[in-house]
């Protein structure tokens, strides 16, 4: 069951990679693969048990898989140190402001839509 779902995921990613080389050089293979799988699920109208099992087991380990790219920070310590305050300040401030702004905007828009539906 798990393996069958996993095969679907790998297949979508490989198709995505092919499309990436053939037509869409600006989108990475996995993102195209996700759009493909999403399109396939839309056509099919439901998520099969094998796919559900494979995707939920994999997604549980998403933070683990992000550790190796995060460790990459150490390779660029010098380049970051040179511009440290500018980079750190800009990253921190822009993130804090934009995350609050995004959440606030979305909440406002949801509230407005709900009010309009109530009327």
């Amino acid at each position, binding site marked *: 069951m798990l393996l069958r779902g996993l095969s679907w995921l790998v297949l979508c990613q490989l198709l995505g990679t092919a499309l990436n080389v053939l037509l869409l050089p600006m989108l990475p293979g996995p993102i195209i693969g*996700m759009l493909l799988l999403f399109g396939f699920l839309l056509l099919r109208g439901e998520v099969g048990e094998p796919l559900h099992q494979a995707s939920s087991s994999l997604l549980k380990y998403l933070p683990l898989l992000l550790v190796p790219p*995060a460790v990459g920070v150490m390779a660029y310590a010098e380049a970051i140190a040179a511009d440290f305050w500018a980079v750190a300040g800009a990253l921190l401030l822009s993130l804090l402001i934009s995350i609050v702004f995004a959440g606030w905007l979305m909440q406002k828009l949801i509230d407005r839509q709900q009010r309009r539906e109530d009327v």
Partner: protein
Amino acid sequence: MSLEWQAAWQAVTHHPLFGVGITLGAYQLAMAAYEKTRWVFLQPVLVSMLTVIGILLLCGLSYAEYQGSVAALTLFLGPVTVALAVPLFLNLRRIRQLLWPILITLAVAGVFATVLGVGLAWLLGAEQIMLMSMAPKSVTSPIAMLVASQIGGIAALAAVFVMITGIIGAICGPALLKRFGVRHQAALGMALGLTAHAVGTARALQESEECGAFAALAMSLMGVVTAVLLPLAILMLL
């Protein structure tokens, strides 16, 4: 007889499984610490990252060697990204109900996040190459790396900025959003995914499945839109 301690140590630290071993170990420790304390600064990705960097420095191993030995783990990032289509699909009904809020937030807040990051770094005096590596900071690292190299930044630096942004977002995001009165799961997820990509999405999945689905949606939309529009925008501006 004398035991070859030095040789054994070398054999262990340079074994292809050493990188996987310390990553798995560090991650489980970090997860256990997080679950026990529920303290926001103990984000599993951050704690594991610091632990692994510490071990690598102690053992005198380079990032290149570590990267080679964890290639098997990194390989699965592809299928996991594909797997995000499933929560996205399962929450389609709720997403459809909120179609306009999603599209408007994506357009306005997405542009805002990108412009604000680059603008602040420029004001604080960062170099052009830094700015270009920083522009795609809010999107998932494979896209960010591609976009950065297209617009004249350094791909690996972009990945680093993406990671830093994601980790800060996961640590401060939920508490900050709640303080500003953002309670709706969809709004929380949207903000986390839009600004803090995969790390934010992983954090959103801890909140609730709905929150995670909106984060995955926001992350992928932001990724696609940035990949297509940012290189065009830079081309027109410069």
